[in-house]
Every structure is written in C-alpha cells, then in structure tokens.
C-alpha cells in the first residue's frame, strides 16, 4: 500500500513528463528535414519565454 502510494505519483509525473521540454516529450527531427510554417502568428505567452511587446 505504502509502495503504491509512492509509485503512483512517480508514474504520474513520468506520464506528464511525456510532454515537458525538460522531461522528454517529442524530439525534434533531424534539422535538415524540418519545414518552417508560413504565415502563422504565435500569440504572446510570457510563461513560455516568448518575448512580449
């Protein structure tokens, strides 16, 4: 029971980390093959490190 109480949060963290830039998630493809998007304006999010005007 105690083990489960310790393991479940750990598993939860690992699953959530599947999308964290610091904890795994998608890996970039080889740079040679990346297509840059055209005409998309990304909204400003200070929390993401994006520079806001």
């Amino acid at each position: 029971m105690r083990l489960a109480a310790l393991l479940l949060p750990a598993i939860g963290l690992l699953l959530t980390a599947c999308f964290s830039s610091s904890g795994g998630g998608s890996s970039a493809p080889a740079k040679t093959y990346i297509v840059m998007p055209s005409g998309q304006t990304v909204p400003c999010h200070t929390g993401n490190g994006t520079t806001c005007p």
Partner: protein
Amino acid sequence: MTGPAQGSVALVTHGWHTDIALPATEATGPLASFRRLFPGARVLVFGYGKRTFVIAPAHTLSEWVIGPFPGPAAIEVSAITADAATAYGAAHVMTLPLPPGGAAGLSAFLWQALAKDDAGNPRLIAPGNWPGSLFYAASSGYSLGHTCNRWSAEALQAARLPIDPGDVAFSWQVDDQARRLLRAPRS
C-alpha cells in the same frame, strides 16, 4: 486488415512519448490546410500532451507535483520533408499500412482533436519545442487516463487499425500493439 493498403501512418516513439506521423498527401478534409501551412511538407507530425507543461514548462518541485492532475491539453504540430524513419531514425519509427478509409478516418480524428477558434480554425497557443513546430489547443483534456500515448492509440484506431487504446498509458503499450500488427500476416 482486409483489402490492399491505402497509404500509411507512422508511430514515432520518443522514450515516454509517442507521435503520429501522417504523409501530407494523406491529410484530407480540413486537415489538408496544414499542407498549406507547411509548404513542401512530405509528412505532418502530431503529438499530444498536457498544456501546462507546454506553455510554462515545470521548473520547480511544486509544478512537477501538480503535473499529473487533469488539465487542458495541447497538440504539437510539425512537418518534415522526409519520411519519418529518415527524419527521426528508423529505430524510433514504425510505419503501418492503412486499410481503405484509414487515412480519412485519421484525418478526421486529428482535425477533431484540435480545438477551434471562433472562425473555425485550429487555435494556435504557442511556439513548439523547436523552431518549426507549433502548439495548438486540444479539444480533449489531459489526465493520467488520457495521456499522449493513449491519444496516439486512439489516432491509430481512428485510422481503422486494430489497436485498442483501452488500457494504454505508456509508450511501450501502444508500441507493442503496433509491433504485433506489423508482424501479423496480411490478408
């Protein structure tokens, strides 16, 4: 699977995480708009995850602790000029042939998975994890019962592949099902 294969989909595995890679020519219906967004794309790549970790990656213990709780999700969209195995490495990619209607089913699933703005366009929320990728709001929420890997399994199921997303939480669970599918004799 019955009938000749009509296109393909790739499951891209990055450790704990999986992505879905769809040849751009197989993106049908409204999803085809991503072909215009990524001119010259050969493959479109979609990945699902918890939005909190996208907009403001966790840096403190308390942020990590609240991570597993349910919350809004995001979908990372990117595009490549090569097939997925070339761009990510063959060891990380399983390419599955699609049955008739599979590409349309997958396109519909991916489009539905994106939350829309008032104009009906996918709602862009942030730049992605690397230059060239974009995060969009997801129409479904993230939880430990609906992880990135469960979402990938749902996408493959929507592509009319015999994948059961029911108990999928970890990447190897969807990976194993895809591997079995590749080994199964084709009818």
